[in-house]
């Protein structure tokens, strides 16, 4: 007993000594940022934008590695078991919180397996329809959808996708079930919306902003607490009387559990400096979003966000009774 305690103490001491050594020289080689989705998608784009700026700040290249599959849980699982030396980090979005409920056999515990670096950005969502959808404003839209709930169809980009989450929220808010049609990703879903094959979708501005501007789809509301600069005429869901429908696709940066605190601090500082770059802000603005303020790009803020969001989505997903495994 005494021996094991001693051994454990020795081991802990060794780990601490090693981590102090790591922290002093960190980073002395390239860092891998795992994006658990396909290259070219909205999450990948956010990842690559900040990876480039953080590389400049850290003085070492950050390589984006796309480990797609199973709603982002494969990539997250890889990082959960990666070496906790700060050379592997994970960029994940809201799916980090929802997968805790959507997947009943997750290989890792989202709340236990990671250290938190900070929030990156919160992408607003928009409620959009095919361009010839009849209602003229958000209030009449809600009435119309409720009255015609049995003929209207709603698209999403697959189970667990942001559009699916927003759709669940929408139906529970207006208390009307709508026939939901899943697609393999946003691309095909958006194509069908453009072609008028389907009526409604709720998706990130990353995917919808240009189409709304181009008049190829119609927007009724944004899901953020305040109106967006790019669409000042679009009301918020709260203005329409549905504050519970507020949702954003928030992105966070994580590292495996046990990554030394000094390394986490270094990464956080680097993330904050990247997010403060006006060029990053300008590029995110094109997508209808903004970098998280420095106060949110911190371990504590991300931890609070994740815990809050897991608690928030658990009952919503369980009520809908949809699981991804």
């Amino acid at each position, binding site marked *: 007993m005494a021996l094991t305690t001693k051994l454990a103490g020795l081991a802990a001491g060794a780990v601490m000594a090693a981590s102090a050594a790591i922290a002093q020289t960190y980073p002395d080689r390239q860092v891998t940022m795992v994006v658990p989705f396909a*290259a070219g998608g909205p999450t990948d*784009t956010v990842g690559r*934008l900040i990876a480039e700026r953080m590389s400049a700040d850290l003085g070492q290249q950050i390589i984006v590695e796309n480990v797609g599959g199973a709603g982002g849980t494969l990539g997250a699982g890889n990082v959960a078991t990666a070496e906790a030396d700060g050379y592997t980090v994970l960029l994940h979005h809201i799916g980090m919180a929802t997968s805790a409920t959507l997947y009943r056999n997750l290989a890792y515990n989202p709340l236990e397996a990671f250290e938190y670096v900070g929030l990156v950005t919160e992408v607003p969502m928009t409620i959009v329809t095919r361009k010839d959808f009849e209602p003229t404003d958000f209030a009449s839209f809600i009435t119309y959808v409720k009255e015609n709930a049995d003929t209207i169809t709603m698209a999403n980009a697959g189970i667990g996708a942001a559009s699916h989450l927003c759709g669940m929220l929408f139906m529970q808010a207006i208390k009307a079930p709508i026939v939901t049609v899943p697609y393999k990703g946003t*691309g095909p879903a958006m*194509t069908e919306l*453009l072609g008028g094959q389907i009526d409604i979708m709720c998706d990130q501005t990353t995917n919808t*902003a*240009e189409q709304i*501007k181009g008049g190829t789809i119609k927007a009724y509301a944004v899901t953020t607490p305040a109106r967006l600069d790019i669409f000042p005429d679009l009301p918020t869901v709260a203005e329409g009387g549905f504050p519970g429908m507020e949702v954003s696709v928030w992105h966070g940066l994580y590292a495996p559990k046990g990554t030394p605190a000094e390394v986490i601090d270094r990464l956080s500082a680097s993330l904050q400096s990247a997010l403060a770059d006006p060029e990053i802000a300008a*590029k995110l603005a094109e997508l209808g979003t903004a970098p998280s303020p420095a106060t949110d790009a911190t371990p504590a803020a991300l931890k609070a966000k994740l815990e809050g969001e897991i608690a928030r989505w658990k009952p919503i997903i369980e009520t809908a009774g949809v699981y991804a495994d």
Partner: protein
Amino acid sequence: MDLLSNLSLGFATAASPENLLFCLIGVILGTLIGVLPGIGATATIAMLLPITFQLEPVSSLIMLAGIYYGAQYGGSTTAILINMPGESSSAVTAIDGYQMARRGKAGTALAVAALGSFFAGTVATLLVALFAPPLTAIALKFGAAEYFSLMLLGLVSAIALAHGSILKALAMVVLGLILGLVGTDIYTGAPRFTFGITEYADGLSFVALAVGIFGIAEILRNLEGDQDRTVLGTSLGGLLPSRADLKRMVAPMLRGTAVGSILGILPGGGAVLAAFASYTIEKRLSDHPEEFGQGAIAGVAGPESANNAGAQTSFIPLLTLGIPANPVMALMVGAMIIQGIVPGPNVASEQPELFWGIIASMWIGNLMLVVLNLPLIGLWVKLLKVPYHVLFPVIMAFCSIGVYSVNSNVFDLYAVAFFGLMGYVLLKLRCEPAPLLLGFVLGPMLEENLRRAMILGRGDPTIFVARPISLTLLLLTLAVLVVMFLPSIRKKREEVFVEAD
């Protein structure tokens, strides 16, 4: 003339020394990665994305586009020489291209592929320039019902892919369908045929399947004895196609281009489907259908034209709607966003230089590719003289790197190994792998769209005949079935009459 001024703007942009250079870099890189089996354009473009941050938006997109269609050229090279499709769309080329190579006509096959691709690329680029908006409108008319009917037509026609036993071909199609179902059901989230392996939750990788079942199986077969291999290296003569060869490739090339241009526009289906469709058509129309699978020139010229045409026209949804038709296009979207251009319906009007510059560069790139590839044919063919005990480990190493690089997933490598063994067994059983691949590609789309159409139609199956495009496709399917069975029906009737007499 709007078009002329647009095109001249495009060529002025694309022909600037800088952009020409990046176009050249793109097509050379594309050819190289296409030649390396398994390493696809997707992985390469993903790796090169960070480099493009420093470039002008037009230059970077011209280079990335060059990689994409350069890979289409390069992919056919390995398909023909070593039966290893470097790109998914060149899987069909491997069928007859490799047989031509085994008969000592590797040079001819490569030249036919390059010329066919160039012709198709030129025509398809012109189509993109002339008709991008109206073609987009057609693509948007394709809903779930239309896709289902199209897939059904493709699957029924697939039986023509078989030479030999129809029963075996059917079995292979069904096996392909089942393999295609591996993964998560998108409607319920239920995992199917994954044996609890999360790594297969998104299905089996097409590249892994194609590399295993064509390439690895062929390596295993070659290792049985070295007699077969010597055939490959012997005849270097006749690098360029003869006059008779050229004559035989003209019609398939035209038809392949037409098929490829149309299917390329549809998001999802794209170049792979186009190549299969073209092969089927050529076999149907050929005076010598028995040549197919034994090294028919039409079996190379048609699908190669089709996949290259499809590769060009798959830019249409991206350029006019901002919607990527395939993973490579999704990466192009990513590249544009990083450059501060969010693709959408307004790109053509807001960024005319970018829009027309890319279109013009496609033609320039195709020209570069044919100039680049024709002289290289001699070099590629010489590659076959490398002793096989040196060549095959190299091939397998590159395959593994390539397949792994797509998703950084070790389970894709296990899949290559498994399908390599399976492909070898199928070879021994004389079962054709091509129908299996087609089933694998079409199966999931068929199911997805069938169920989606039924959801949209609230369970009413008349949705398939109520929509004109879907109805037309279903009638075509029926016509194919009738044509296929008519001869045997007539024969039976004759038999009946003979007995009656």
